[in-house]
């Protein structure tokens, strides 16, 4: 039994009749940062969704530290410390930022917001604003902040830099680096310089199939990844 923090083997996923993922296998070790790149519609988000329990794979298995994840509910998986930050930037718009964070705390039992507010100082001034009014970038910060409460062991992030100002992107890089000291990360990303800057491993997807796995630090460069996009 492997002790990979995440191991996906021969994953197939579909929405109704239309198949999206074909035999995808990935592995993530502890404290590893794994990038996932691919064109639009390649199936990146679908991959994360199937891991996080929002989509039941049609075949294949997903394990975390030897524990089978397939068939578990999303909240159970989240409860195991596998947090997912979706791409759609949906915050709970009727709640304030503070309440959004409280929910994260409630779920994870971690009421210490200092790390989060240290990562995203901007959130501090937004605490009492309704999340529905936040700008695109602010939402992204909130989403990530909410997810890292409770120190997850694996963070699945879907296009985190989308809509963030460069300064924040740079900052986010540091955040992820910091996080990777205690957790493993899977980051779906289009921003190659950013992902190449932090990833230990990069998977490339195309039309639902794994087309490349780059592990050599030499290879983890934007120029190498370019063709897969």
């Amino acid at each position, binding site marked *: 039994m492997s002790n990979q923090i995440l191991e996906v083997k021969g994953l197939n996923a579909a929405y109704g*009749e*239309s*198949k*999206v993922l*074909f035999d995808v296998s990935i592995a993530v070790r502890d404290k590893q940062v794994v990038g996932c790149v691919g064109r639009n519609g390649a*199936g990146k988000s679908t991959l994360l969704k199937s891991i996080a329990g929002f989509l039941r794979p049609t075949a294949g298995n997903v394990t975390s530290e030897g524990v089978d994840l397939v068939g578990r509910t999303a909240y159970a998986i989240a409860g195991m410390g596998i947090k997912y930050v979706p791409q759609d930037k949906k915050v709970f718009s009727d709640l304030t930022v503070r309440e959004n964070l409280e929910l994260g705390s409630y779920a994870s039992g971690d009421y210490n917001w200092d790390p989060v507010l240290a990562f995203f100082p901007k959130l501090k001034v937004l605490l009492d604003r309704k999340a529905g009014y936040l700008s695109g970038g602010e939402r992204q910060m909130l989403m990530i902040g909410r997810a890292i409460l409770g120190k997850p062991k694996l963070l699945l992030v879907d296009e985190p830099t989308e809509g963030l100002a460069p300064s924040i992107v740079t900052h986010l890089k540091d955040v992820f680096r910091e996080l990777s000291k205690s957790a493993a990360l899977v980051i779906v990303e289009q921003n190659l310089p950013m992902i190449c800057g932090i990833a230990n491993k990069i998977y490339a997807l195309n*039309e*639902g199939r794994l087309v490349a796995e780059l592990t050599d630090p030499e290879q983890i460069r934007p120029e190498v990844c370019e063709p897969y996009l």
Partner: protein
Amino acid sequence: MSVLRWWSGLLVAFGLLVLLRIFLPLPFNNEIIIFSIYVIGCNYLLGRVGFISFGQPAYLAVGAYGTAFYLYYFGGNPYVGILVGIVSGIVVSALVGPLFVRLRSDYFALVNLALAVIIFFLMQKVLASVTFGDNGLELLTKMDVTPILDISRPDQFWVFAFVSAFGVWALYKYLDDSVFGACCLAAKANEDKLRFLGYSNYGIRLMAFVVANTTTAFAGALYAVHQGLVSPEMSSPARAADPVVVTILGGVGTLYGPLVGSIAFVGMKDLISKVFGHWELIVGFLLVFVMLAGERGIWGSLEPLLRRWILRQRETDKPVVADAGVKAR
């Protein structure tokens, strides 16, 4: 060829209605036809525009009273009466529409309910001197016998109602194809975007509101003539949920949902109430069961099955072509 395909569904559906007429009692047939016309407006509002309305009885009553007032006080020709009913439907919905369509769906549902209640009290009480309160306007004996088709008689009325329903269905089928239909769906999905494409969201909703409620008023006019009696009870809030129930039972936003739903609903009530005293118990739980079994209502669940079945039939006729459906992209 494509013209034929366009009509084929309608022809089959109404062909089946003729079959029903042969095998089931006349009152049942008349009821389901009028009721389904009643429901199709609600179905359109809910399925295409995203407006749920608990106030359809209001417009039903408007149509019915329009017809009834004409037939009781002014003339005897039921056809003219129905026309008056339709016109009153247009007038009233055009009057209240501008106020109502601004509202969000759930509140929209309730202002309509309030309208129904108000119309109920108006007819039952305030205007009792002309409407005779809940004794109703009795016009059965006031209608002229019309040449060709005497719709004051139930059997000939059926022919008229059948033809009308066919017309209504053709209209709604056409609406689904029209740009207007697409706009309604679009408004339901994302009203902001629609405005930023340059369409008047408000205008589109208002039009949909008027069209749908005029259809409902038409059903009211038909009821008036068919029953020969109109009473305020028609817009009683206790029955406000009926059209919505049937809409969902049949399948929201589907063309034939209202027909199937009406047959199921009226059938369920009329048949079960005959054989079983506690029909509510059965109907209630049946309703729950249908809702749980199929998210898309009876027709919504049935249609894909039928379609697949028909496709399979066709495929066996034709040489097999490569299956293109499963390609991921």
